[in-house]
């Protein structure tokens, strides 16, 4: 019974925790411009994150080593440092975008300008990282994030022509009004949003925070293979709601308010309240996850004590990194950069940084000296190899496409 509860809780938090500001904005933007013709990318991306999250979780459970430990161990200090700088630049950018998202959610709820909320949101994120226990942090925001289910409810309430919707998703083609390059650019953005590297940094280090061992591999797998795909369904629901309400009216997604618009239209005020709670939980939870990922990765590269499983005084360097990251993220936001634009850039740069993270994981998950019988099987290796090719292609294509399309304009 206790075990069943643990699995259920894990799955629910995985669903609610799957969506972050990148998924919210990119899915809504894509739905509003391309309908469901890019839904296949979400499916591909979600399967990809499942494959690599499972691998990194399994390595963490069996060998006790988190992802950046392995990056340093396999790439050495020089290549490892380059990897660290690139991955942390992207993760940090994402963290700033998430804190911006929290502020935008508050702005929607209170009509107080988002820039006033940003320092408050940043301070709140740091306070949670400083004081709140890991399990509480993970579960509370994951469960609250479930209120994004209101998007699925909204799609149902809008009563679409389901056959038409499914056929649009199954027969993807570039809309006549759009350029093929722009279509490809948004495909990569969606792929980057679904597979952001911080998710595996956080997932594997989180496994060590929770003292996983070989016995926990089955629970971890259930979380990944049930929770993440259902989280992906939420992403698709956001895209579908935008396709149903925003696309016909030619509204492009420039603000978080636009993302919530279809819910307001279909479900009304109460729905909007749920959507706002969902935005807050998803962005706040992800801000904590990205912040921790920055701290985890830097500490793991240098071998410092990290983690919330020890009291802060024992991991002083780790906690100073968290403090500096929270403060700097707010400083970046206060340059009055648009958080939505920051999000769009962060998902594309995520796509660029993908191979840096996923290659070492694939390599170590095959190391039989570490992994014994838990090393990758044929399926994991086949999928891992296919995705390795995909992430390399996405990584190479991302920046040229960004330049050609002027970031999707």
């Amino acid at each position, binding site marked *: 019974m206790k075990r069943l509860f643990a699995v259920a809780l894990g799955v629910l938090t995985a669903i609610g925790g799957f969506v972050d500001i990148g998924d919210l904005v990119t899915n809504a933007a894509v739905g509003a411009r391309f309908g469901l013709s890019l839904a296949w990318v979400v499916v591909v991306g979600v399967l990809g994150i499942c494959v690599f999250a499972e691998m990194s979780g399994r390595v963490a*459970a*069996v*060998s*006790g*080593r988190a992802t950046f*430990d392995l990056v*340093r*161990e*396999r*790439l*050495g*200090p*020089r*290549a*490892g*440092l380059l990897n660290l700088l690139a991955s942390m630049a992207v993760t940090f950018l994402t963290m700033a975008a998430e804190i911006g998202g929290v502020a935008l959610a508050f702005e929607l709820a209170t009509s107080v300008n988002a820039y006033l909320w940003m320092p408050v949101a940043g301070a709140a994120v740091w306070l949670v990282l*400083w*004081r709140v*226990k*890991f*399990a509480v942090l993970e579960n509370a925001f994951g469960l609250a994030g479930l209120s994004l289910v209101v998007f699925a409810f909204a799609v149902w309430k809008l009563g679409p022509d389901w056959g038409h919707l499914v056929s649009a998703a199954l027969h993807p083609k570039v809309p006549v009004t759009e350029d093929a390059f722009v279509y490809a650019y948004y495909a990569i953005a969606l792929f980057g949003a679904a597979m952001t590297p911080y998710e595996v940094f956080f997932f594997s280090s989180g496994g060590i*925070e929770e003292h996983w*061992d*070989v016995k926990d591999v089955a629970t971890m797998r259930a979380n990944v293979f049930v929770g993440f795909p259902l989280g992906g369904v939420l992403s698709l629901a956001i895209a579908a709601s935008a396709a149903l309400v925003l696309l016909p009216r030619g509204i492009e997604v420039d603000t978080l308010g636009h993302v919530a618009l279809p819910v307001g239209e279909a479900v009304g005020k109460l729905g909007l309240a749920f959507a706002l709670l969902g935005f807050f939980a998803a962005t706040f939870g992800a801000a904590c996850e990205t912040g921790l990922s920055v701290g985890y990765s830097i*500490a793991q590269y*240098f*071998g*410092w*004590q*990290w983690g*919330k*499983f*020890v*009291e*802060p*005084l*024992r*991991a*002083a*360097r780790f*906690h*100073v990194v968290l403090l500096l990251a929270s403060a700097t993220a707010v400083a970046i936001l206060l340059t009055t950069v648009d958080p939505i634009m920051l999000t769009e850039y962060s998902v594309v740069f995520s796509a660029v940084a993908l191979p840096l993270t996923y*290659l*070492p994981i*694939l*390599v*170590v998950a*095959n*190391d*039989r*000296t*570490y992994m*014994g019988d*838990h090393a*990758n099987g044929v399926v994991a*290796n086949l999928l*891992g*190899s296919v995705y*390795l*090719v995909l992430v390399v292609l996405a990584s190479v294509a991302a920046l040229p496409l960004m330049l050609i399309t002027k970031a999707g304009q």
Partner: protein
Amino acid sequence: MNGAADLAQGRIPLVLRLLDHQIVGAEDELLGNVDDLELAETDRGLLVVGLLSGPAALAVRHGGRSGHWLAAIWRRLHPDHHPHVLSIPMAHVTALDSAVHVSRYAQRVLEQEAGLELWLRRYVVSRLPGARGGGDDRQHNAVITSRERHEELACADDAPRLSRLLGAEVRTRSGEVLGTVIELTAEAFERRGLELGRLRLVEVVCSRRHLGQDLGYTMAPQGPALVRGILRRWHSGDRRLSLDDLVHVDWREQTLTFPDGVTARHPHERLPQER
């Protein structure tokens, strides 16, 4: 702590299994990474005698300008006039799995010499409300807050280090270049009871390719066919040589000289008695 096997059996690939690994204490405290290894030239051959950890050792591995800066900052901020790098003797290494486990003494030394951690602990983190507690802490011993010197463990500035061998040129007497060093293997020869003890270097692997480390596929082929195939092709010119044949090491010039016609095999090729 985990299911990883004891890796100290047989030949240990040092770059793959020791260098850059996490050092952990008795209760899984994270104490630093193995940033370099101290070597000694003895009549039994080259031995690994100590683990080097910390910014000064890492700076040497980085090399170039970033390494220079890292070392300079470390020297400037260190309380000693001529700071030394610490070397944890191999007799204090108790186990080798996915991490390097050290004795309680070594743990205390590493904690008392972690300057940045202690400074931040004292002047930043302990001044924030709630610095104690708040973790899911299972460790009950006192937190070390003051620095203590351990001159007894100083590594001589001119002591040979593993990082000097990595990237060194392997050549024969007549000047034929076989490649540069990418991996060395060693075996524990004085292991008794709890301690791993010093390791004797046995073989060197050199490669004609310069692409960092090859992700741990040097000694044995494994992994998905795609990655294995690419790496195998890339490293088809790798050669494994026994250090018994070694004629001379020039630490300054970073060259290893072997006799002409020395036996050099691909690392994956095993002799019948090694199977």
